């Protein structure tokens, strides 16, 4: 029988992600482009996901779009919110996960899910960028480092300092003043990670707080944030292989289910 393929595309505020799965729910290919909605990111991720696979839209039975830019994906057959997609995606990657914290470019979501990946309840950040991926980007720029260097710096912190979690702009001026006082960049970085987690905990504590806990989204690639979360909760945090792809995986699974499980 001919192979059947399903495409999930997650266009966020900071990056675009795509995943192809087949009729056996196996991941065939994934792609991440560090450009989000309103840029060439969505087009690039589609070019990239099909590259070297011999596949094109003609081979895709159904496409589901998710993420902040989901409604601009004209080729998608269906749009599903990133809340449902993260829940579905993490259920595929980490079956035991019941509490999901997703920190994306401009959203933070805390989601309680059940054993089949159904959303039981969810809470999101208010109209403020503190505690999001954008916050980390701003901080990395002030520190003069690349965003992926933060976790290494965090590891070497000896006397972490406190950084405000109330507001990105205030935190920025705090960091500038810490730098001018010659505070070690490693200690500031740890403070920044703690600050993100403090903000996320306010959302997380509203959920059912059921184990296992998992962190998804682009920020989950930063082990400094994972360690900060583990310290704050005193629990092990499970992270999927490619945490940034969870939303796109969930979207692909929804596409799969729409065809394979409902005919």
């Amino acid at each position, binding site marked *: 029988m001919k192979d059947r393929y399903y495409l999930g595309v997650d266009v966020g505020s900071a990056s675009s992600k795509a995943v192809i799965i087949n009729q056996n729910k196996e991941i065939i290919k994934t792609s991440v482009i560090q450009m989000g909605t309103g840029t060439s990111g969505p087009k690039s991720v589609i070019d990239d996901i099909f590259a070297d696979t011999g596949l094109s839209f003609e081979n895709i039975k159904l496409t589901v779009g998710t993420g902040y830019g989901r409604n601009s994906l004209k080729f998608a057959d269906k749009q599903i*919110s990133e809340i*449902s997609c993260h829940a579905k995606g993490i259920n595929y990657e980490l079956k035991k996960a019941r509490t999901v914290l997703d920190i994306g470019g401009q*959203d933070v979501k805390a989601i309680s899910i059940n054993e089949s990946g159904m*959303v039981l309840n969810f809470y999101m950040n208010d109209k403020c960028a503190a505690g999001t991926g954008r916050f980390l980007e701003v901080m990395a720029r002030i520190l003069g480092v690349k965003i992926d260097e933060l976790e290494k710096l965090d590891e070497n912190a000896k006397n972490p300092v406190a950084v405000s979690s109330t507001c990105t702009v205030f935190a920025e001026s705090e960091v500038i003043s810490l730098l001018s006082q010659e505070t070690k960049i490693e200690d500031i970085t740890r403070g920044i990670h703690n600050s993100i987690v403090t903000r996320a905990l306010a959302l997380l504590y*509203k959920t059912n707080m059921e184990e296992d806990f998992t962190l998804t989204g682009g920020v989950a690639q930063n082990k400094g944030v994972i360690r900060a979360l583990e310290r704050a909760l005193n629990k092990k945090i499970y992270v999927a292989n490619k945490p940034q792809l969870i939303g796109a995986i969930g979207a692909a699974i929804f596409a799969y289910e729409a065809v394979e499980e409902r005919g």
Partner: protein
Amino acid sequence: MSIINENMTSKEMLDILVDKNMEDARKAKAKGELVCWSSSIAPCEFTETMGICTIYPENYAAVLAAKKLAPEFLEHAERKGYANDICGYARINLGYMDLKKELDEIEFPLPDLVLLCNNICETLLKWYENIAYELNIPLLIVDVPFNHGDEVTEENIKYVEAQLYDLIHQLELICNKPFDMDKFQEVMKIASNNATSWYEATSLCSAVPSPLSGFDMFNYMALIVCMRGKKECGTTFKKLKAELEEKISKGECGLRGAEEKHRIMWDGIACWPYLSHTYKVLKNKGANMTGSTYPSAWALEYTPGNLYEMAKAYTSMGNNLSLKGQTDLRKGIIKEAKCKGVVMHLNRSCKMCDFLQYEIGKELEESMDIPITTFDGDQADPRNYSKAQYETRIEALVEMMEQRAQ
């Protein structure tokens, strides 16, 4: 002769009456008659009896916000020193008052007295006090204690009843004429009947599909707020009721051009600056707001002439209830209106609503197993809302409702 008649639709009546109410206030002002600014669930029966033209800043602030005219007044109030986390209605109204106080003919005439009842909100006390101070006019307060317990206490009712008698005395002094008890009796009857007609029409939302979208109800609310003491208000709601009953008999749904697939309860005040957006996102998902606290908000039932019962009615308002009272009220609405999901407007303007919502939401989720989403917004300040955040949350809520229905 009335300016509305039975051949008109309720919507036509609504538009005519809302315009007329404002026009009457402008005429009264021009003739040197008294104009009163009043909070939305204050006892209008008293000013109506005295023939004082009464208009409603909360309603007018909502109108300005919906027309996207609020920023000028919000910013002016903030420049005068009112912090931006004070209620948006208050800032718009205080900004409006200050900007317009030197002008002669304005759309919403300035008051000669103000009347407030803090059964819906505590900010009103300082808001109206400042108006009275700035304009050097009388301030009439009906102070209603918060109901911390399950029942409205006898002491509270008597305390409010005594103030109602005093209100009569104060109005006699301000107007320099005796209070006409016969007319008062008549006005009380009209107001009480109007409240019943409002409830009877809007509670038809419980039909499946609902013949009325909650967002249309928001528009009709202007009448129960502004003209509760006038007969035409009841005529309109009776007409609305007849129209809705006809729609029910035909199985027609209140969503314009969409099928009702989901029924939600809306918790909190409308997000007036984005009324259309908040409506359309729900409508596009087939979600109809069939439940809200508004149908019962003006259900002020009392025997005309009985000030004790009247005091009790004004003291027992939804917003003035304990946490348990507020939660039970919503449980009843969810059941009655057959809602399967809840949208909570985390309204920056109204701290009273917001702070209760967390606990109310938790209790509703636990006891009714109903999915809930919240969104950041404001009843009047457009700066506190994000379209994309609202869309994501509504979509996720509808997805949760769909999954649970499977």
